[in-house]
């Protein structure tokens, strides 16, 4: 598991509400038998014109935003489909963090398992960050620090954010979630012994039906 501690990087303002995972990576890019190369699908419908050439208007096609590692967005970023290809396409394209007032829940959790940090800040704060970035034409960088749960704006003002503790520990330390759970094998066995007596119908064995 890839870890995340702190970055200082270029941020791309994409201040739109409800940027859904179908926009982050369209469904046609999910027809594949490998998780490599998902970056080819990142924002594909916005990034390219109908003839396949790059859309010069699209922010991630313009310097210096083409090297951005942070996205600034409006409410409900990553809503919609559960596709984990969405955070993977972002990560494979060099992104490390998204800062928005709220996220689709499934996308939010998927980020932590792919070296991506979703940061929740109030819309006024994200708008302020976007304005500072825009007025510097993208040259002003933003710092995102997971260890101290702190975003530092280009003007040096800091904003605290909160992440779910267990997901934060996992991302900070690059831990494998399944290994962590398997350390609880005894608890799992104890739970099931009781639960199986209480809810026998919940337990199915192959061949029992």
């Amino acid at each position, binding site marked *: 598991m890839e870890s995340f501690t702190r970055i200082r990087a270029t941020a791309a303002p994409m*201040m*739109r*509400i*409800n940027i859904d995972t*179908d*926009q982050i990576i*369209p*469904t*046609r890019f*999910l*027809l*594949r*038998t490998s998780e490599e190369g998902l970056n080819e699908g990142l924002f594909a*419908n916005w990034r390219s014109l*109908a003839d396949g050439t790059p859309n010069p208007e699209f922010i991630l096609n313009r310097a210096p935003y083409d090297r951005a590692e942070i996205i600034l967005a*409006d*409410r*409900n970023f990553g*809503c*919609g*489909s*559960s*596709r*984990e290809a969405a955070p993977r396409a972002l990560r494979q394209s060099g992104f490390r963090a998204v800062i928005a*007032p*709220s996220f*689709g*829940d*499934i996308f*939010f*959790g*998927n980020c932590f*398992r792919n070296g991506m940090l979703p940061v*929740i*800040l109030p819309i006024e704060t994200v708008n302020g960050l976007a304005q500072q970035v825009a007025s510097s034409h993208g040259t002003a960088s933003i710092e995102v620090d997971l260890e101290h749960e702190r975003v530092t704006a280009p003007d040096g003002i800091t904003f605290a954010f*909160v992440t*779910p*503790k*267990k*997901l934060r520990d996992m991302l900070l330390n690059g831990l494998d*979630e*399944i290994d*962590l*759970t*398997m350390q*609880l094998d005894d608890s*799992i066995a104890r*739970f099931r012994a009781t*639960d199986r007596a*209480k*809810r*026998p*119908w*919940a*337990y*199915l*064995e*192959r*061949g029992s*039906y």
Partner: protein
Amino acid sequence: MPDTKTVAPRTFFEKVWSDHVIAELDEDPAEGTTEGSTERTTQSTALLQIDRLFLHEVTGGVSLRELKHAGRATSSPGQVFTAIDHVVSIRPDRRPGEGRNETATAMIEETLLASAREGLQVFNIGDPRQGIVHVISPELGLTLPGTTLVCGDSHTCTVGALGTLGWGVGSSEGVHVLATQTLRQAKPKTMRISFEGALRPGVSAKDMALHLIGSIGANGGIGYAVEFAGSTVRSLPIEGRLTLCNMGIEFSARYAFVAPDDLTYAFLKDREYVPKGAAWDAAVAYWRTLPSDGAAQFDREVKIDSATIAPQVTWGTSPQQSVGIDDTVPEPDDYDDPGTRELVRTALDYQRLSPGTRVDQIPIDVAYIGSCTNARLSDLHVAADVLRGRKVAANVLAICVPGSTQVKRAAEAAGLDQVFRDAGFEWLEPGCAMCATGGADRLANRRVISTTNRNFENRQGPKTRTHLASPATVAASAILGHFADARTFSTHA
């Protein structure tokens, strides 16, 4: 353990959640909790028992591959099922394992092989149980009240209609469930949405869902487990509840459900994977303890007067951008919030619509009936009642994809396929099909009225303009060639 007699009143969700907690993972459960100005608060994390896992050939294929790469094996194969649905061919005479193209076929092949390796039950093409995962899981009785069911598909909340706690997960979480039959989950807040009173004639569960999302917004459910309640919901048949819960994720509620009642038990009884005989009776006795206690408190309450709901059509590119069929396309300046104004402008531009246009005058190119939202037998009956004895308008492409093989066969036994065909509809084989670009070449650049759940940009194909509506509204629109109010149609049932 506290004495159950002294336990405070609890919601359905709290009962089901606590019955699945193997371990609390935060040393101090309050530690991770925050009150603040942001829309999301973080909450305590628990390790939960997962009763059922469904895989499919897109995200489930990824989970199976990554399970193998990690050198792990499936811990409880009897509780894991594989549906082949997302990228299947929908042409008549398709063969088992046939995808919509070569890559899709390779994905299905890989998923079938991996499922066999792990000892999983598969519902492949050719099996009478094949179909869209959220259509077949209730048909099979794999959606028991008070159980947890996850799948790498956001619409897994659909099964909440049976009192199942179902939710969509990522592929990595899918690997976690395969390897351990558990998940680590942050506990959400609770919201009760009560629909009270009788629906007006011609108004369906889909209209309830779109009306709701229009009022609370596509982000209204973030961080919440949502219980649908109230007299309207109690009166809804199970298939209507499935439609309503299906749309939970469209306002970003990861979990949406209806507490079980006698309709639930009647629906499930004798299905393939439900307990039988004395085991059934014991299960029902337990399920009857699950509904929310009368005095239970929710973090948020929403009340809706069902008599105010009109048949809905979405005009924009978010399910929240919905209006009544007798209404007009809104103006960006109707909205106070600058972000929302911009969203409206972007949506109108994509949909090529002008503010003030009467919705029932917008012409369509395609009428589509399908998906995990609205392709069950009752949906096809409602549409057929509108279509019977009528013809689809000239130049309208009309397509019906039943939600499952079982639905398709039951519809054919009732003669519905002939009604659809006589009206000019194509009648195709079950799968997720054109809900998510499965008909991209045929829907490109066209305006589609659709019984599906997502009207996102390019969701159904390049520059496809999708408008969400109920089966009745889609059928009526197919006949007239523009968005139409099915209530103006006399039906010949």
